[in-house]
Structures are given as structure tokens and as C-alpha cells.
């Protein structure tokens, strides 16, 4: 094994400024530790930001090659796009923003690998392991870039949210694309070819794979997909770090990979779905066929209520738990819900919010929407905590949440959601459900909760229904 020739010198940066990189990643870790609670989180994020500034400045000071104009241009472009987007994005649009940011991260990764390939004329004179990590980064980065863009399109409703797939051949196609991409990579890594054509074939296969994986995934499964793509981008960044021998990149990328993996697993568990099943696709569409047939098949009767009656019921409760779901987010009802809460608190009613991990379209999304509406942090209860308290709750007010409250998940082994962790709303003394109609939710499954004698349904748009209740309350 001889020393690497000049061509790869930029892949082998060795500098005492590595110390600054170590400072930078220490700050990333310290910053993320701050995210363990709301009071330390703002500072934590800023600490991580300082780490990033140190890493960038150290890199700029350490480089002695030219092309400063290109660097200024790239940073100016990125700032011009990133700053207004971050400032103006609505909290309801946060999932697509995160998807988009995640996508550009993956894009940067595969473009960097491509440059490495071009500047070394096909990794000539580069150690094999560096080539392998660079190729890995290219494939995963490309999958992540395209997958995230499709996820963005679906969330933004540029592309239909329902699953779009090739049917039963989908998995074979996906597998084939993966094999092709990896085969092209192996060909390059083994020194079989230095042809850029093969590299581009690899990128294209990975791009198609990214599309093929996310297109068949329905709206309800989006939290899992976004988390998974987040993990992918992280891992590809870590691989770039090994290829460039840059410890800050390795650590930062790997931590993001860990974070994305934890969230993916958490979301999958909360939805009672296995990750392979989600990637295989075809589930979670907004209009599942089975659901349409199932609706109305239930023997029980549904009790309907009015805003006035609901207001009275709430006013005389000691303890009310609000269960918000995607219906609340879609109707932009979070501010109306906050007003209702204030009105109830004036009357001495104790109010809290029970949040299922998959309420909303990305992990933790519902909490952000409620925080934006000035709901205090300590009123937001995670599922485990909330479930211990439903037993002593007088009224549970379910707003646009469906499957996550379905007792069938605990009682009916034949149900597709059996085993899914739910908010045990049916333990409370009475339940009011605000819902547009009796249509089943994402998964197309009947909700037994609605036929429970202690449940009253208030049909209508979440926002106007909540506002009506608030108006009735203020007149009591």
C-alpha cells in the first residue's frame, strides 16, 4: 500500500485544525442534549449553531486553494433560499419543509461524491475504502434527495397523497434498481471502470429507487418515511465524512442517522406497522377501499349532540382532556381550541391535551401546532402519561382524531390495528367526538368508540364546531 498520489490529496485532509472539528462536534452533542426539555432547548439549538459556525470557519481558514468566488456564490444562494423559507413557513407546513431541507442535504451529499469521482478521474489513485464510502454516500444521498422531494410533493399536495404504485411488481422493481445501483458501484470500486457513464447510471438507479420507494406510500405513513429519509441523509453524510477523513462530518452524520433511526422505529411502533411493510407500500391511503365497504356495517347506534349540549357537558366537568388529531390540524383549529381551553379554565375546569405520537404528519408535529397557539408546554401530555389519567377524566374531547382512539386496537385481535398503542379515551367518563362525518379514517377502519353509549358525536368542521362550543360556553 503506497501513499496516495496528489489527485486524492483533498480526500485526505490532515490538519491540526481537526481539533476545531472536535470542538464543533462536541458542541453538536451538547446542543442536542439541551433538547431534552423546552427550557434548555433554545440554548441547545444555538450551541449546535455555534458548533456549525466553528466547523465552517475552520474549514474556510484551513483551505489554501482558490475559488473563493464560488464559495461566496454558493453560500449566498443557500442563504437567499434558506432564510426566507425558514422565516415564513407556516407551522402546519413544517413536515414538507423538513422533507425539503432533508432532500437538499441528500442532494449535497451525492453532488459531492460526484465531484470526488470527476476530480479523481474515477477514483484513480484513491484508497479503495474511500471509494466505497464515497459511492455509498452517492447512492444513499441520491435516494434521500429524490425520496424527500417526492415526500415534499405529497405533503404539499403537488402530487396525490394516495399510494401510487406498480402493484405487485413494485418490490421486484425496487430490488432490481437497488441491485443495479450497487452493481454499478461495485464495478467502479473494484477498478473495473473509471467511466463516468457508469457512475451516472448508478445515480439514476438510486434516483429512481428514491422515487419508487416513496410514491407508493400513503399520507398516513408519512411520519415514518420522513424519519427514515432523515436517517438516510445522516448516514450518507457520515459516509462522506469517512471519505473526506473529516471527524466533524462523521460524528454529525452518524448522530443524525441515530436520531432518524430512533424516530423511524418510534413512528412505526406507534402505527403498529413494520418498517419493511411500509416500504413495500400500498397502505395508508386516504381512500382505502376496504374502509368504504366497512362503513355502515356496524350494528350499534350513534348518539349525536349539539354544540350547546357539548358546552354544558364541558362546563360542568372537573377535568377535560382534549385529543387532537390530523382533522384539527387540517381545519387549522388549534387557535380555536386554545380559546375553548381558556374559556374552560376560567370556569375552573382542568384541561390538558393528550397527544398520540403519530398525531400530525411528522413526529411531534401536533405539539408544535399547539405550542404555536400558546398552549403551555406542561398541558401537553405524551401518550403514556395521558393514558394513566383518562380514568379520572370527566370529558374527553376528541377533535379530528380517529384510529389512535379506536379501542379495537386493544380488544379485537381481528382488527388491522390490533396491538397499536392508542389513547385510551374510552376509559374516561364521557366522550365528545368532533368529526366531519362517519367516514372512517386513513386506515379505513370502523371506530368502536363512536358506538359506545358514553360517546356523543358532534358533526362538523373542527374549527367551526369548537368555536360554536366556545360561544355557547361564554353565554352559560
Amino acid at each position, binding site marked *: 500500500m503506497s501513499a*496516495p498520489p496528489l489527485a486524492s490529496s*483533498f480526500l485526505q*485532509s490532515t490538519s491540526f485544525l481537526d481539533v476545531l472539528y472536535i470542538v464543533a462536534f462536541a458542541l*453538536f*452533542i451538547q446542543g*442536542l*442534549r439541551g*433538547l431534552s*426539555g*423546552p427550557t434548555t432547548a433554545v440554548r441547545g*439549538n*444555538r450551541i*449546535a*449553531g455555534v458548533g*456549525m459556525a466553528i466547523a*465552517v470557519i475552520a474549514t474556510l481558514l484551513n483551505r489554501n486553494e482558490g475559488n473563493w468566488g*464560488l*464559495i461566496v456564490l*454558493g453560500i449566498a*444562494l*443557500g*442563504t437567499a433560499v*434558506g*432564510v426566507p423559507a425558514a422565516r415564513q*413557513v407556516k407551522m402546519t407546513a*413544517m413536515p414538507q*419543509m*423538513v422533507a425539503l*431541507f432533508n432532500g*437538499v*442535504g441528500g*442532494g*449535497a451529499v451525492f*453532488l*459531492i461524491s460526484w*465531484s470526488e469521482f470527476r*476530480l479523481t478521474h474515477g477514483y484513480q489513485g484513491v484508497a479503495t475504502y474511500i471509494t466505497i464510502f464515497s459511492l455509498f454516500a452517492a447512492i444513499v444521498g441520491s435516494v434521500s434527495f429524490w425520496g424527500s422531494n417526492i415526500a415534499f410533493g405529497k405533503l404539499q399536495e403537488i402530487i396525490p397523497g394516495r399510494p401510487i404504485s406498480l402493484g405487485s411488481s413494485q418490490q421486484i422493481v425496487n430490488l432490481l434498481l437497488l441491485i443495479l445501483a450497487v452493481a454499478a458501484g461495485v464495478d467502479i470500486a473494484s477498478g473495473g471502470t473509471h467511466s463516468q457513464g457508469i457512475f451516472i447510471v448508478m445515480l439514476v438507479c438510486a434516483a429512481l429507487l428514491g422515487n419508487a420507494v416513496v410514491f407508493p406510500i400513503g399520507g398516513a405513513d408519512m411520519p415514518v418515511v420522513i424519519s427514515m429519509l432523515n436517517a438516510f*441523509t445522516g448516514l450518507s*453524510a457520515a459516509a462522506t465524512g*469517512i471519505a473526506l477523513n*473529516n471527524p*466533524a*462530518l462523521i*460524528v*454529525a*452524520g*452518524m*448522530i443524525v442517522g441515530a*436520531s*432518524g433511526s*430512533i*424516530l423511524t422505529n*418510534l413512528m412505526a411502533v406507534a402505527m403498529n406497522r413494520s418498517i419493511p411493510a411500509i416500504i413495500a407500500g400500498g397502505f395508508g391511503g386516504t381512500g382505502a377501499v376496504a374502509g368504504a365497504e366497512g362503513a355502515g356495517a356496524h350494528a350499534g347506534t350513534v348518539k349525536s349532540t349539539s354544540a350547546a349540549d357539548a358546552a354544558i357537558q364541558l362546563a360542568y366537568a372537573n377535568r377535560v382532556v382534549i385529543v387532537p388529531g390530523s382533522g384539527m390540524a387540517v381545519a387549522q383549529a388549534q387557535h380555536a381550541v386554545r380559546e375553548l381551553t381558556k374559556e374552560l379554565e376560567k370556569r375552573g375546569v382542568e384541561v390538558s391535551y393528550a*397527544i398520540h405520537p403519530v398525531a400530525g404528519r*411528522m413526529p*411531534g408535529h401536533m405539539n408544535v401546532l399547539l*405550542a404555536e397557539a400558546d398552549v*403551555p408546554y*406542561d398541558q401537553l401530555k*405524551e401518550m403514556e402519561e395521558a393514558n394513566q389519567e383518562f380514568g379520572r377524566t370527566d370529558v374527553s374531547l376528541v377533535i379530528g382524531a380517529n384510529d389512535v382512539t379506536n379501542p379495537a386496537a386493544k380488544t379485537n385481535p381481528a382488527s388491522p390495528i390490533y396491538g397499536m398503542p392508542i389513547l385510551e379515551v374510552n376509559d374516561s367518563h364521557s366522550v365528545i367526538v368532533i368529526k366531519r362525518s362517519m367516514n372512517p379514517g386513513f386506515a379505513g377502519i370502523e371506530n368502536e368508540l363512536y358506538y359506545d353509549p358514553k360517546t356523543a358525536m358532534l358533526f362538523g368542521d373542527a374549527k367551526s364546531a369548537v368555536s360554536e362550543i366556545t360561544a355557547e360556553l361564554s353565554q352559560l
Partner: protein
Amino acid sequence: MILASVLTTNLAILVLAGFIGFVVISKVPNTLHTPLMSGTNAIHGIVLLGGLLIVGFSGNGTFNKIILVIAIAFGTINVVGGFLVTDRMLEMFKAKPKSGGDGDKGAKS
């Protein structure tokens, strides 16, 4: 030999970072998972460094320059946008840490 030890060192860093990541991220409550995701988005924007390191070697090739400028721009969007949007969200959570007394102080508008 040297290359091999560089690789093993980097792999050790990779593995340790993975374990640290799992421990640290596990402590983040569900409530803060959206800011966690946008914050980690900002952190993986560190691939920006890759672009910064390589762009000096891009020579005269116009295409090399274009893809590296895009890579740097993408990385910058990640870093700048990610940290800003996370800050925005976290400020909302911080605004009223307690439901009682001092809540009015933090209230705007």
C-alpha cells in the same frame, strides 16, 4: 498501514458517535420531536464542509464548478434554514414554560 489506521480510527469514531447519538436522542421527549428533526437537518448540513474542501480543486471545468456551487448552496440551505426554523419552533415552546402566574408576562399581542 497509515491508511488502515486512519480507516479504523474513523470507524471507531463512527461507532462511538452512533452510541452517543442513541443515548442523547433517546432523552428527547416526543413533544420536541419536530424541532429535533429540523435541528438534526441543520446538523447534517455539515456536508457543506465537503463542498468547501473540494471546490478549490475543481480546476477549470465549468460542470465541476456548477455541481459544487449547488452542493454548497444545498448545504447552506440546510444549515441556515434548519437552525432558524428550529429556533422559531423552540421559542414557541419556551414562551410559556408554566401555565400559571408568569404566563401573562410572556404573552404577546
